[in-house]
C-alpha cells in the first residue's frame, strides 16, 4: 500500500469519505496532519504533500524541510489548493486525485538535502578596519589577510593562491572617502583649533576648558551612532564640569536609540545648545589674533544670522564608501563583477550578490559579523544532484554561466566541461530554461512542474 502524508492548515479540507474512497479505489493510505503538529516520522511515507500557498513554499524552503525531515527532497510536493479551489471549485477533488497519481507515476530521483558548512575562516580584502577586526576577534572568527591573493571557488569555500589557504567567506572592506562637513580654508586650519572628536576625547582628561567656547559640527550623513553618543557625552561633560559654552551645530539630531535619546536630553539639560543650521550658509574664518575661529551661520529656526567666536571647533567628517572592484581577485572563467550594495540597492546592505562574500560598511561591523558568524557556523542547506549538466548534450555556449545569478555554474578549467556546483545552486531553474541545447536537467521535476507546481490538464 502506498503511504501518503498531507500536511494541511485545516484538516477539514480533506473529508473522511474522500480518504476512504481513495484507500479503497486507489490503494492510497492517506494520513492528514496539521502543519504545525509535532512528532512525525517522515521517512515512512512514499510522498509528502503540503497543501498550501505555493508562493510561500519556495524550493529553498522545501530543501530545508527535506533536510529537517531527513527525506529525499523529491518526495515533497506542494499543492497550491488556494488557487485551485478558486478556479475549479467543483472539480477540486478530481484534480487532487490526478495530482497525486501524476506525482506517484514519476520515479524518485536520488537526491539528498545536505547542510554545507563553510570553513570557519575569513579573508578580508583589502584590509580589516580596526572595528571589523575587533568584532571578528570577539566572535572567534579566524581572519586571513592576503591583499594580493587570487581566489578560486571550491564548493562553497574559496581557495587562495599563492598561500594555499581555504576560507569560508570573504569580507570586502571598501575604502572610504572622508570629507569635512564644510570646507575650511587653510587659514582656519592654521589656527590649530580645528580638531576632531578623538582630540577632544584625549584632551578632556588633561585640560580644563573653563570659560571657553566650543562648537561641534556634525553632518547628517555618515556619522555613526557611537560618534553621536560621544558628542552628546563630551558636550555635556564640558558644559557641566568646565562650564564651557557649547554649541552643537547640526542639520539633524539623531536620537532614535535608547541611550542616544537619554544622552541628548542630558546634554540639553546641562546647557548645551543644539542649533539646527543649513551647512551651506555656514562660514568659518580665523579670529584676528589667530587664537580662535569665528563661525557665522543662519539658524534654521528663525533665520537669524549669528556669529560666534569659538576657542575650539570640533568637526566630524562625512564618510562615504567608495566602490571596490572584486574582479582582479578572481581566478575563474567568468568575469566576476561584484556589485556593492551602494550601487545596487536591491541587495541587502552586506551582500554583493555572491554567496560567501560580504561587504563591511562603517558603523555596521557588529551586525555584519553576526551575519557572517551565522553563515559560517550554520551554513546552508542544499540539494545534491538536483540540477545537473548532461555533458554529451552541452555545446559549451556558456549561456548558463552567464545566466546563473548565484555563479553556481562553473566551467572546469582542465576538462573544459560545464558543471553545476550544487553547494551554490539555489534551484532557481534559470539555467535550464535558457540552455539552447536542453542540456541542463532538473531531476525529479519536469520543466513544466518547475514553472507551475500543479498541472491542471484534466479540466476539459
Amino acid at each position, binding site marked *: 500500500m502506498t503511504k501518503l502524508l498531507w500536511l494541511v492548515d485545516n484538516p477539514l479540507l480533506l473529508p473522511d469519505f474522500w480518504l476512504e474512497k481513495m484507500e479503497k479505489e486507489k490503494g492510497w493510505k492517506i494520513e492528514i496532519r496539521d*502543519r*504545525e503538529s*509535532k*512528532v512525525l516520522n517522515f521517512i515512512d511515507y512514499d510522498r509528502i504533500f503540503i497543501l498550501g500557498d505555493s508562493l*510561500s513554499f519556495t524550493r529553498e*524552503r522545501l530543501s530545508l*524541510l527535506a533536510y*529537517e525531515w531527513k527525506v529525499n527532497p523529491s518526495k515533497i510536493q506542494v499543492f497550491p489548493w488556494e488557487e485551485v479551489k478558486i478556479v475549479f471549485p467543483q472539480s477540486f477533488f478530481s484534480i487532487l486525485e490526478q495530482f497525486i497519481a501524476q506525482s506517484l507515476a514519476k520515479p524518485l530521483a536520488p537526491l539528498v538535502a545536505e547542510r554545507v558548512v563553510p570553513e570557519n575562516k575569513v579573508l578580508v580584502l583589502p584590509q580589516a578596519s580596526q572595528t571589523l577586526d575587533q568584532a571578528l576577534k570577539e566572535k572567534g572568527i579566524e581572519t586571513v589577510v592576503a591583499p594580493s591573493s587570487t581566489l578560486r571557488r571550491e564548493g562553497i569555500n574559496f581557495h587562495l593562491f599563492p598561500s594555499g589557504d581555504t576560507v569560508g567567506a570573504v569580507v570586502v572592506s571598501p575604502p572610504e572617502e572622508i570629507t569635512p562637513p564644510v570646507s575650511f580654508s587653510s587659514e582656519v586650519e592654521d589656527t590649530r583649533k580645528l580638531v576632531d572628536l578623538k582630540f577632544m576625547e584625549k584632551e578632556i582628561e588633561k585640560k580644563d576648558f573653563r570659560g571657553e567656547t566650543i562648537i561641534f559640527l556634525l553632518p*547628517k*550623513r555618515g556619522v555613526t*551612532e557611537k560618534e553621536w553618543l560621544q558628542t552628546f557625552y563630551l558636550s555635556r561633560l564640558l558644559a557641566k564640569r568646565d562650564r564651557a559654552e557649547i554649541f552643537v551645530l547640526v542639520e*539633524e*539630531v*539623531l*536620537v*532614535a*536609540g*535608547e541611550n542616544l*535619546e537619554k544622552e541628548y*536630553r542630558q546634554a540639553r539639560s546641562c546647557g548645551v545648545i543644539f542649533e*539646527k543650521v543649513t551647512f551651506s550658509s555656514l562660514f568659518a574664518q580665523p579670529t584676528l589674533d589667530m587664537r580662535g575661529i569665528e563661525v557665522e551661520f543662519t539658524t*534654521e529656526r528663525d533665520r537669524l544670522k549669528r556669529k560666534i567666536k569659538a576657542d575650539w571647533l570640533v568637526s566630524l567628517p562625512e564618510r562615504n564608501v567608495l566602490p571596490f572592484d572584486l574582479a582582479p581577485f578572481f581566478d575563474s572563467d567568468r568575469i566576476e563583477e561584484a556589485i556593492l550594495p*551602494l550601487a545596487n*540597492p*536591491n541587495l*541587502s*546592505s552586506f551582500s554583493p550578490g555572491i554567496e560567501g562574500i560580504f561587504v563591511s560598511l562603517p558603523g555596521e561591523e557588529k*551586525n555584519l559579523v*553576526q551575519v557572517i558568524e551565522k553563515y559560517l557556523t550554520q551554513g546552508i542547506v542544499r540539494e545534491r544532484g538536483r540540477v545537473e549538466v548532461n555533458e554529451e548534450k552541452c555545446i559549451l555556449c556558456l549561456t548558463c554561466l552567464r545566466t546563473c545569478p548565484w555563479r553556481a555554474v562553473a566551467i572546469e578549467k582542465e576538462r573544459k566541461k560545464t558543471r553545476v556546483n550544487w553547494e551554490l545552486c539555489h534551484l532557481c531553474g534559470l539555467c535550464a530554461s535558457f540552455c539552447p541545447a536542453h542540456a541542463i536537467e532538473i531531476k525529479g521535476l519536469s520543466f513544466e512542474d518547475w514553472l507551475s507546481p500543479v498541472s491542471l490538464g484534466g479540466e476539459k
Partner: protein
Amino acid sequence: MEYDLLIIGGGVAGLTLAQTLQDRLKVLLVEESSLGGVASSLGCKATDECLSCGVCHFVDLKREIVFRKFNVLTDRKITSFAKSGNKFQIKTEKGEEITSQLLTVATGAAPLEVKNLSRLGGGKLPRVYSGWDVEKGLNEGIISSFRDFSSLAFIQCAGSRNFKEKRGYCSQVCCRYALRIAENLKFSFPQMNIDFYYMDLQILGKKKEKLWEIADKINLIRHLPYEVKEEEGRLSLLFEEQGVERKKYDALILSVGMVPSPGTQQTGKRLGLNFDSGGFIKSYGQGHTSCEGVFVCGTACGPKDIETAREEAQIVAEEIWRVRRG
C-alpha cells in the same frame, strides 16, 4: 509543568528568545492571542527594489517557527503570578499551572491610537490616516487607493517626543517607515506632492543612503503642525512659521509611534517592576529588571525596530543562559 524559562509574549522578541534558547533550556512561551505580535501586521515596503524595512526578516522567523518543535501556548491569558521561594508560579485562564525558574516579559508595544490625536484630525476627519493603518494595508495594496490625491502630507512624531503627554521618547521606527511609504507613493504617483512635517530625521540601520535619497525627493518642513481642520473639503494644516501659516492637502498620514501595550503595563504592574518615564518596563542592561529572575526584551522596554529587537533578544538570551548556568 515546570520550566527553566517562561516567556510572556510571542512577538519578534519573544520568538527570537525562544528560538535562541530552545535547545539549551526548557522553555515555554505563552501568548495571549496568536504568534507574531505587531510585526505580523506590517507590510512589505518594496517598490521595484527592496527598501530593507526588515519586515520580511520576521516572515522568515515565522516560517521557521511553523515547523519547529516549540513549546508554545497561544490564546492564553495569564490570570495570576505568584512567587514561592525562587520560583514563579503562573496560572492561565484555561487552568494550566506553570512553574518556572525565570521569567521574561516580551509583551511589546502597541501603535498609538489616532483617536488620541483628535487635534490633528485623527479618528475624526476623513482622509486622515494613521501610519499604522497604512502599514497594515500595504500588502492589500492600500497605496493604489491614494491615486486621486494630488497632495499629501506626513506628520511625524504623532504622539511621540511629547513630554506634556508623558511620551517624551522617540519611537524610532516612524521616520523610517514614513519615508519608505513616501517612496512607495512617489513611485506609484510621481506627480503627487508630498510634504513631510518633522522634527529630526531618524535614519539608522540598513539602506541609510537610500533613505536620505528619498528624503531629498520630498518636501521637508521642519515644523510640527498644531491643528488640522477641514475646509472646503480639503484638510487644512496649521503651523507656525513667521506667524500662523496654513497649507491644504487632500490627505494626511499621521506617523504614529509606539506606546507600551496594555499587556506590558499590566504584566509589569503585577510583577511589581519599575517603569521608565515613558511607561515602558525599565531595563537595567542585558534585560535585567528591578526584580530578580525577571527579564525584559523587545519593545516592552522601549521602542525599537524588528532587527534591534532581534539583536537585543539574542543578547538577553545569552545573559539568561549565563544566569541559569550560575
